[in-house]
């Protein structure tokens, strides 16, 4: 009972005692997961513990069902014809990949561990990047990053252009046609539905509860807490188990840190990849290339001013 209460209250603002209690005894909550709204929260996924039971997937579906699309049919005719209709409403039970109706799935890999062939399972969902390209490059601000590091797509505003999916290194967001704001604007010529993905149960976290997948896991695969502490925990776990880390540096850093007993190169080779089934490859910081130009942007007006002043001085001297 005490554990249950602590699990439900670990993030609640102002209940420091509960957080303190949680620190020592609750695996789901990081040891020092005191509520700090401005700090990014990360999750640690200990792949070695995952048994692939699917309880997290089930819990995710139950908890987030009210956010799933309810498309209006028939869909508007799209112009030009090349615009793809993406309809998952008749395939809502698909659970072996990401869809607008399935924001978390279990990925499987058969790998060689200590000379033995072993089945490894791992939950896959949005990585919740520290500087998420899906959020930063959304043309309308429909994707947003919360102060606690959650990236979420506002289904009331999203037009379904799928840019977020194209700029996501893992192609996480999934589109459902026939729903959302585009139907009220120019449904045949702009937009194509709404993009959906894991929002790490932002509403539950706001209520002081754990995300459904963490709460439901019988093996306590996941831990949530401030990013710095989760990274420390991940490193300690990796050291202790001779494991490997994924997500700490990928795409400039994410808020989903996996620790695996086998190298991620090997896991990546072994998992089934493709549409709705993200890879485990190393990922460079996609936002860094443009952001590295910021310094030049600051210096540019200085260079312009210097050139104009230089010209003035030159003309003044030549006229004397």
């Amino acid at each position: 009972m005490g554990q249950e209460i602590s699990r439900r209250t670990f993030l609640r603002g102002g209940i420091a005692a509960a957080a303190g209690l949680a620190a020592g005894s609750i695996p789901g909550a990081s040891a020092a997961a005191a509520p700090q709204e401005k700090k990014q929260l990360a999750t640690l996924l200990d792949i070695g513990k995952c048994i692939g039971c699917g309880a997290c997937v089930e819990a995710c579906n139950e908890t987030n069902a009210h956010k799933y699309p309810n498309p209006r049919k028939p869909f508007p005719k799209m112009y030009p014809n090349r615009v793809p209709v993406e309809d998952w409403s008749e395939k809502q039970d698909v659970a072996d990949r990401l869809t607008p109706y399935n924001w978390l799935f279990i990925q499987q890999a058969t790998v060689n561990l200590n000379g033995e062939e072993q089945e490894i399972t791992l939950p896959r969902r949005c990585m919740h990047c520290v500087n998420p390209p899906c959020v930063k490059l959304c043309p309308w601000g429909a994707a947003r990053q919360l102060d606690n590091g959650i990236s979420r797509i506002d289904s009331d505003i999203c037009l379904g252009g799928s840019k977020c999916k194209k700029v996501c290194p893992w192609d996480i967001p999934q589109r459902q046609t026939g729903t959302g704001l585009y139907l009220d604007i120019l449904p045949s010529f702009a937009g194509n539905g709404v993009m959906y993905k894991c929002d790490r149960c932002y509403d539950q976290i706001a209520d002081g509860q754990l995300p459904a997948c963490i709460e439901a896991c019988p093996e306590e695969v996941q831990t949530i807490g401030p990013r710095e502490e989760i990274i420390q925990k991940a490193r300690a776990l990796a050291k202790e188990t001779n494991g490997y880390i994924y997500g700490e540096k990928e795409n400039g850093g994410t808020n989903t840190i996996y620790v695996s007993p086998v190298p991620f190169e090997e896991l990546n080779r072994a998992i089934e990849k493709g549409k709705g089934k993200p890879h485990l490859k190393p990922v460079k910081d996609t936002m860094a290339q443009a952001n590295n130009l910021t310094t030049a942007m600051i210096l540019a007006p200085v260079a312009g001013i210097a050139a104009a002043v230089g010209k003035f001085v030159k003309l003044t001297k030549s006229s004397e």
Partner: protein
Amino acid sequence: MRVQQTAISKVPNRTVRYAYLITVFLLTLTGFGQMPIFKRYYIADIPGLGWLAQFFVTHYIHYLAAILILALVAYIIIDYLMLQKKNFRLTATGYVRGAILAGILVSGILLVIRNLAGSQFGPWFIIFLDLAHLGLVMTFLMVTGYCLIFKKQWTNAR
């Protein structure tokens, strides 16, 4: 201390004018490329224009062109204040275009800040910035079109 009149009449010179025009064209093209329209409407299918459908490429070129426009605008403003103002004055359409351009630059700079890790702009402010940036560009293009048709200059001789 007087500056030669012949030198003034050459400013802004042809190089600066062309640099400005090319930069504005690139900014407009890559700016519209931030919306998923070039692939949908076959523009990116035109040989040589496939890069318009690659968001990180258009984003990077947009930043490069933004560096150029900031340098050019700073140069033109200071040049005008130090050399041109005595002999030329901004026209009404010059003021209008300048004000719109200033709005585009300010919203663009704020969007660059938004794109840095750790930026803390609120969601509604970001939506406002996105829409303002696009709306101001559309307005700028329309006003520029009007000025081209009716031969309105940025400045007149005093």
